[in-house]
């Protein structure tokens, strides 16, 4: 079964069904914002949210993850996650971001077992955006409010019901298992969905990214980098909130004879990131680090993987303490002085 209509009154039972086989994560409203957390019932879900404060990538690439434990010089355990999880209501930009990170962690010759186990054991139900923010720009970077990349099921909120569409085999089998709660979608449902998606796509602000890769290729030594990075504080919030950033650090934590090796998030915006043991730092100031960030996302990634590693979620723009706007930086580079287009 590939499609289904779930009325919101049945959502509770749907979540209960999911909980029998999966740990269910969904957007939960808290005082500081919306966060992806395990939910016990559909009542906890904030269906009408914009986007979560922290990207749901932390459910696949946790902020701190144990790679192995050891005792008395012997390896004790390599914990590979085997819990089945369902993420209900992720935004398409975040799902697209996961498909970007897949390109790094799931290569032909190099596969990350920890991340891939989580990906394999998770079913993603993404929720189409019907109200983009003024900081969104997914349509300019290869995404969109209804993009299905990276998700197993795409959901659209149509008033009092959700339209579910399976995009992968995993999604199909989930929809089939829940068919008792799902009705066959009517033609009017599908038309309403098209209408919502089209309106949403019009609402997403656009930025001019044409020619960014070429300009970046030529622009390594441009003086504009110091202008862009001047007020940056190197706080790293942009990288921590970015759904496509994946850099990590590996350290050991030892107490007596017992210990564990952990992988934690790291940020290219920290000076220690490229500090050599000799004391030399090839990226000594914020200028080089900011340049590296933009180059990585819009040039190196395109060269290596054929895709931009920015999904236009706007979290970095919204959370930067000094309002360093990635969109402005991009437009400075592409040479366009025009302002970011606003919502109509």
């Amino acid at each position, binding site marked *: 079964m590939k499609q289904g209509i779930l009325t919101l009154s049945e959502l509770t039972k749907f979540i209960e069904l999911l909980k029998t086989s999966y740990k269910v994560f969904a957007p939960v*409203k808290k*005082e*500081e*914002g*919306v966060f992806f957390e395990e939910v016990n019932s559909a009542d906890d879900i*904030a269906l009408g*949210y*914009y986007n979560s*404060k*922290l990207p749901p990538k932390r459910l696949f690439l*946790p*902020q*701190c993850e144990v790679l192995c434990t050891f005792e008395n010089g012997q390896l004790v355990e390599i914990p590979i996650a085997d819990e089945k999880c369902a993420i209900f209501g992720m935004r398409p930009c975040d799902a697209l971001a996961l498909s970007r990170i897949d390109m790094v962690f799931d290569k032909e010759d190099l596969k990350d077992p920890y991340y891939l186990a989580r990906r394999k054991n998770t079913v993603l139900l993404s929720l189409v955006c019907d*109200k983009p*923010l*003024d*900081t969104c720009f997914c349509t300019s970077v290869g995404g969109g409010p209804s993009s299905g990349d990276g998700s197993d099921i795409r959901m659209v909120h149509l008033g009092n019901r959700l339209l579910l569409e399976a995009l992968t085999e995993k999604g199909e089998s989930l929809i089939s298992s829940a068919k008792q709660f799902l009705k066959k979608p009517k033609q009017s449902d599908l038309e309403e969905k098209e209408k919502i998606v089209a309106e949403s796509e019009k609402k997403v602000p656009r930025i001019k990214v044409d020619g960014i890769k070429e300009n970046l290729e030529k622009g390594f030594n441009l003086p504009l980098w110091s202008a862009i990075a*001047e*007020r940056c*504080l*190197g*706080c*790293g*919030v942009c990288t*921590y*909130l970015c759904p496509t950033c994946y850099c990590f*650090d590996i*350290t050991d*934590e030892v107490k007596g004879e017992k210990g564990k090796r*952990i992988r*934690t*998030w790291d*940020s290219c915006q*920290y000076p*220690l990131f490229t500090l050599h043991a000799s004391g030399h730092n090839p990226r000594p100031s914020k200028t080089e680090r900011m340049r590296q960030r933009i180059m990585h996302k819009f040039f190196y990634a395109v060269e290596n993987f054929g895709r931009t590693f920015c999904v236009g979620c706007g979290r970095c*723009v*919204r*959370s930067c*303490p*000094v*309002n*360093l*706007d990635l*969109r*402005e930086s991009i437009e400075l580079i592409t040479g366009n002085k025009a302002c*970011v287009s606003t919502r109509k």
Partner: protein
Amino acid sequence: MEGIETKIRETAKALFSEKKIDILIGHEKGSLVFHSRPVMIRDANDTERLVWNSFCTNNLAVYLPRFFEPKKPKKGEVPPPLPRVAVIAKGCDARSIIGLVRERQVPRQNLIIIGVPCEGMIDKSKLEKLLEGDFIASGSIKDGGTSITGFSGKRLDIKKEQVLLDACIECAFPVVEDADIAIAGTSRKPATEKYKTAKSFSEKSPAERWRYFAQEISKCIRCYACRQVCPNCYCKECFVEQTNPRWVSAGDDLSEKMVFHIGRVFHQAGRCVECDACVRACPVGIDIRTFTQKVAQDVKEMFDYCPGFSPEVSPPLCAYRLDDRQEFITEP
């Protein structure tokens, strides 16, 4: 507010045309609604970018140490002269600047502090809380009131006093005392009741306090934004990054996060001016204020010291009195 903005621009222009400064650090219009952001001006023509409004919350003192880092000149060369920097300073910014002067990070003679009368800054997170999760799509301010419209279309009219930053409501020093140029205007009146947050927290039971501390710190994602925005955190190697000895590991154990925060707050003892830049920078909304204020209160009550004034006075932890309090000493 607008009068002050014009005066700031005129002052800046004059300083450049009289060749008295090389750089001016101020605020400019941000790219999002209700945002202002720091700007570095190097030319008289750019002074039109300067703004002054209720969103100029950034503590600009954080940018100063980087201009005065000692540079090792090549052999035979003379080191370049240190720049002359002007800073648009609110009360809290100025106290941070004096703190940096005291700690010899910044030479006072190279600074021009432009003191601006501050009536308090608006807390955007309070505005968003009033919108109940909605974000601000547009808004305007006039006559002590703020009107905001969320993306959902919901509109609210609020009094500015309701949504000021806690740091501003409890601010005891809104007037810049050591300004080289003082822009005329009315400031907030200093708060009469100091350390309200810390005092009310102290009244809770120890179990409640621990529970709150653990709950807040568990949100931490170790991004170190709090440390980076703080003007006082200018150490080349922070204690959390030292590997020899390893004070704090990188893991997300609650205990590690607590040690980081306890350590950072303790390192601010006698230095923190309660500007709350750390609170605003935190991406997960940790209530850092409740913790930093306690140490500031203790320093004031025990050693009668308030950071941010008189750079020639020794900081409290570099001084002692023979009659310092010692009621906490255990007598067997």
